[in-house]
C-alpha cells in the first residue's frame, strides 16, 4: 500500500540480474532468489510433493520384502524406480537436495528479517500523514478530548503510541512478524533436531526368549543401526532379564483370537551395580532408561526340545524360536540344527500349533493364537547340515538338499512326548513351550528438541496468520467557536486481505475515542 513503504518485504520475487552483471551478479541474484520467502514456500511445497512417492512405492527401510517382490514381478520398471531412488525416497539425494535448499533458504530469509524486525520493534510509530481522508479507513467527529486522553485510550487497547502537538500515531500487531520469525526459526530448529537425532542416535533390534537376559551393548543386538557419530562405548549400560511374557486374546465371538494385551515382565538394572527394578513392558509403555527407550514390537513361540543322538548323548536341549507364518493363529515354523549329533548330524523341521485341532482330512491346524493345546509336528533328517560350507543360513530354515529324510510322518507331539528316530539315530523329546519377544531399543537425543521446535513453530504460525498489523492516526483540531474538538481518525491495516476484518475494529476504536454512535464513524465512507 502506498503509505507502507517501510513494510517488510513479504513476497518480493527478485528481478533478474539484468544484462552484463557477470558471475558475481548472478550469484547475488541466485542468493536473493533462494532466500526469498516465496522460494522457501515453494521448497516447502516441493518437500511435501517429494514425499508422495515414498508413501506409494514400498520403501526398502520399511518393507524390503515388498521391494523384492516388485523386482521379481516387474524387473524393468523396478530397475528404473531404483535408479531414481524411489525405493529409498527419504535417503535419496534429490530429497536431501530439497531439504538442504530449504534449510539454506530459511537461513538466508530469517537472518535479515530478524534484523529488520528488531529495528522495527524499537522504532516509534511513524508520523501522521498529511491527509487522513486518503486512508482506507477514516472517520471524524466532534468531542471534547485531548492528545493525552486519545493516547491513553489507544494504549489501553495495547497500541504502541507516539504523540505530537495535535496528533497521535499508534501501531499494533508486531506479534505477526514475531510469530512469523519464530515459525521459520523453529522450522530450522526442527531440521537441526532431526539431523542431530540421526547423527547421535541409534536403534537396535533383538529377539529375547523368556528366561534370558539382554545387556545394552552393540554385540547383543541382532540388528544395530547407529548414527555416524555414535561410538559403541556411549550406549547406556543398562541390562534386563525377561522373566515372563503374557498375551491375552479374545476367547469367543466374532473377534475370537484378536489380541487384547501383551505384557513382558522384566527385571531391569539401570546401570551396573544399581538395584533391580520390576518393569512391565507393554505396547504403548516402553522402558525408559535415561532416555534410551526399549519397545515391545513382536512375539512368538519357542518350543523346547531335548534331542539325543545315536550314541545316547544329549546333543541339544534348548528352546527353538519359531517364525510366525499365520499371525491370526500363530501357526509357526522352525528349524532345529544339531551339528553336534553323532554319528551323523541331525536336522528337524517342526510346525508349532498353539491350539492344535484335527481337521476332517486328518491334518492338523491351529485354531487360536493362545497356547491352549500346543502341539508340534516334526520332520527329521540326517546327514551333513552344510554349516561348514561358509554359506550363510537362516536359523529359521533347514537346507534339506544334502540331507536324508529320517522321519516324514508322525502324529503331532504333546508336551512330554518323545519320538524314537528310525535306525537308532536317536530321539527327540518335546519338553515344553516358551515365548519370545522382539524388542527395539532407540536412542534419539533429538526427540525432545524436535517437539519443542514444532510446538513453537505452531504457535508462531498461528500468530503470523492470526495477528494483523495495523496503524491508527488521530488528529485533533479546535472547533472555530471553541466548542469542542474535531477528532479525525484514519486507519490502515498492513495485512492485505485483512481490510474487511479491520473495519469492525476500526469502528470500535472510533467509538472508544468518543464518537457517540457508529453512525458518526460511518462517515468514513463519505469520501468515496
Amino acid at each position, binding site marked *: 500500500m502506498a503509505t507502507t513503504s517501510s513494510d517488510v518485504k513479504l513476497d518480493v520475487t527478485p528481478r533478474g540480474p539484468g544484462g552484463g552483471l557477470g558471475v558475481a551478479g548472478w550469484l547475488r541474484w541466485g542468493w536473493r532468489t533462494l532466500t526469498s520467502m516465496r522460494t522457501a514456500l515453494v521448497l516447502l511445497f516441493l518437500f511435501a510433493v517429494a514425499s508422495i512417492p515414498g508413501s506409494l512405492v514400498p520403501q526398502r527401510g520399511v518393507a524390503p520384502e515388498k521391494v523384492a517382490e516388485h523386482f521379481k514381478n516387474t524387473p524393468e520398471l523396478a530397475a528404473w524406480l531404483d535408479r531414481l531412488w524411489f525405493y529409498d525416497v527419504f535417503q535419496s539425494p534429490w530429497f536431501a537436495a530439497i531439504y538442504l535448499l530449504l534449510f539454506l533458504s530459511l537461513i538466508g530469509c530469517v537472518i535479515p528479517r530478524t534484523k529488520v524486525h528488531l529495528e522495527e520493534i524499537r522504532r516509534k510509530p511513524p508520523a501522521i500523514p498529511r491527509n487522513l481522508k486518503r486512508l482506507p479507513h477514516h472517520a471524524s467527529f466532534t468531542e471534547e478530548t485531548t492528545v493525552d486522553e486519545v493516547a491513553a485510550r489507544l494504549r489501553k487497547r495495547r497500541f504502541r503510541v507516539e504523540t505530537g502537538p495535535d496528533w497521535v500515531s499508534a501501531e499494533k500487531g508486531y506479534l505477526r512478524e514475531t510469530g512469523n520469525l519464530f515459525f521459520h526459526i523453529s522450522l530450522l530448529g526442527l531440521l537441526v533436531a532431526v539431523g542431530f537425532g540421526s547423527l547421535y542416535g541409534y*536403534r537396535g533390534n533383538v529377539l529375547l526368549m523368556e528366561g534370558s537376559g539382554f545387556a545394552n551393548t552393540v554385540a547383543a543386538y541382532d540388528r544395530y543401526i547407529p548414527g555416524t557419530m555414535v561410538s559403541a562405548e556411549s550406549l547406556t549400560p543398562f541390562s534386563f532379564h525377561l522373566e515372563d511374557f503374557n498375551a491375552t486374546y479374545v476367547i469367543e465371538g466374532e473377534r475370537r483370537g484378536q489380541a*487384547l494385551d501383551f505384557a513382558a515382565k522384566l527385571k531391569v538394572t539401570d546401570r551396573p551395580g544399581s538395584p533391580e527394578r520390576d518393569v512391565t513392558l507393554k505396547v504403548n509403555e516402553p522402558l525408559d532408561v535415561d532416555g534410551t527407550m526399549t519397545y515391545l514390537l513382536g512375539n512368538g513361540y519357542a518350543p523346547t526340545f531335548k534331542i539325543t543322538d545315536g550314541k545316547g548323548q544329549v546333543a541339544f536341549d534348548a528352546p527353538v524360536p519359531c517364525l510366525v507364518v499365520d499371525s491370526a493363529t500363530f501357526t509357526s515354523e522352525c528349524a532345529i540344527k544339531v551339528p553336534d549329533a553323532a554319528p551323523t548330524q541331525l536336522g528337524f523341521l517342526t510346525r508349532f500349533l498353539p491350539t492344535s485341532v484335527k481337521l476332517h482330512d486328518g491334518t492338523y491346524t491351529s485354531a487360536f493364537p493362545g497356547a491352549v493345546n500346543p502341539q508340534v509336528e516334526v520332520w527329521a533328517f540326517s546327514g551333513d547340515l552344510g554349516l561348514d560350507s561358509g554359506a550363510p543360513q537362516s536359523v529359521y530354515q533347514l537346507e534339506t538338499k544334502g540331507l536324508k529324510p529320517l522321519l516324514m510322518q508322525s502324529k503331532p507331539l504333546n508336551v512330554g512326548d518323545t519320538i524314537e528316530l528310525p535306525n537308532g539315530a536317536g530321539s527327540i523329546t518335546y519338553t515344553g513351550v516358551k515365548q519370545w519377544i522382539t524388542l527395539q531399543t532407540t536412542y534419539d537425543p533429538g526427540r525432545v528438541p524436535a517437539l519443542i521446535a514444532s510446538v513453537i513453530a505452531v504457535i508462531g504460525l498461528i500468530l503470523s496468520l492470526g495477528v494483523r498489523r495495523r496503524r491508527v492516526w488521530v488528529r485533533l483540531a479546535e472547533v472555530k467557536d471553541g466548542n469542542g474538538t474535531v477528532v479525525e481518525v484514519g486507519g490502515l491495516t498492513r*495485512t*492485505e486481505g485483512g481490510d474487511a476484518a479491520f473495519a469492525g475494529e476500526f469502528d470500535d476504536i472510533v467509538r472508544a475515542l468518543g464518537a457517540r454512535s457508529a453512525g458518526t464513524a460511518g462517515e468514513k*465512507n463519505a469520501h468515496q
Partner: protein
Amino acid sequence: MPTSEVDAGLATLSDQLVLVTVLLYVAAMIGYALELAFAAPRTNQVSGARRKVLAGAGGPSADESAGSEVSATSTKPPASPGWAQRAGTVALVVGWLGWAANLAAVVIRGLAVERWPWANMYEFVVAICFAAVTAFLFMQIRFPVRFLGAFVFVASTIGLGFAVRYLHVQAGPVQPSLNTYWIAIHVSAAILASGLFMLAGVSGILYLIRKDGLSRLPTRTDLERVAHRAILVAFPIWTFAIIAGALWADRAWGRYWGWDPKEVWSFITWIGYAAYLHACTTAGWKGKKATIIQIIAFAALLFNLVGVNIFVGGLHSYADVP
C-alpha cells in the same frame, strides 16, 4: 486391563441408530433442498456498500470477490414462498434430531465396547460425519449459513452410507496398541478437524460449481466466508492431531516420525491448508485460486482417509476395513 466383553444389545442399538441418523439426514437434506430450490435466485453482484480499496494501494486485485466481504446485507435471500421457508425450518428441526441420533449412536457404541468409539474406519467415519453436522448446526446458530444445509447433509449422508455399506465391522475390543488414552487425544482431534474441513470442502466445491451472476446457490462471498472460518478453526486442531500422533508414535512405534504413508499424507494435507491460509492472508489471494488450494488439501485429506487405509497400508493400519 482391556475387557473382551461387548454388550451385544447396545452394539445393535448403535447400528440401528446410525440407520435412523441416515434417514433423518436425508429428510433434512430434502427440506433444505426445497427451501433452496424455491427461494428466489441470488446474485453475486454486490449491491450494497462496497468498500473501495485505496487507489494504487496494491491490495488484492479486483477479482470477482474482492472488496465484497462487507456485503453481508446484500446477500439476504430475497423473499421466497412461505412453504419453502417452512420446509427449511422443518429441515433444521429434523437435522437436530438426526444429530441427536448420530450422537447417541457414537456414545452407545462406546458404551457397548467400553472404550473410545473411534478405533476403526467405520467408527471414525461415523464420528467425522457427526463432527461435520455439529459444526454446521452450531455455526448456523451464530451465523447465517442455513443455505449450506442441503449440501452438508448430502455429504454426511454419503459418508454414513459409505460407512454402513462398506466399512461396518462388529463392535469389539481393540488391539493392544490402541488401548491407551492417546486414542482420545489424537483421534478426537483428527475427527474434529476433519469434520470442519469437510464443511469447508463442501463450501469450496459449491463455490467452484456456482458461476458468477444469478443462481439459486448461495453467493460466492458467503461460501468463501464459511470455508475460511471453518479452516481457520480446523487448522490448529489438525496440527495438534499430527503432533499428538507423533507423540503417540514415539510411545508405540519407537520413533516420532518415520514417513509412514499416513504420516506423509497428513503432512501433505497440513501443507495444503497452511498454503491456503497463507495465500489468504499474505499473498492476498482470494476467491477461486484460494478455493482451489483448499480443495486440493481436502482431496489429500480424503485420500489419507480412504486411499491410505484401503490401498496403501503401512504401520498405521488400524482402519480394520472389512
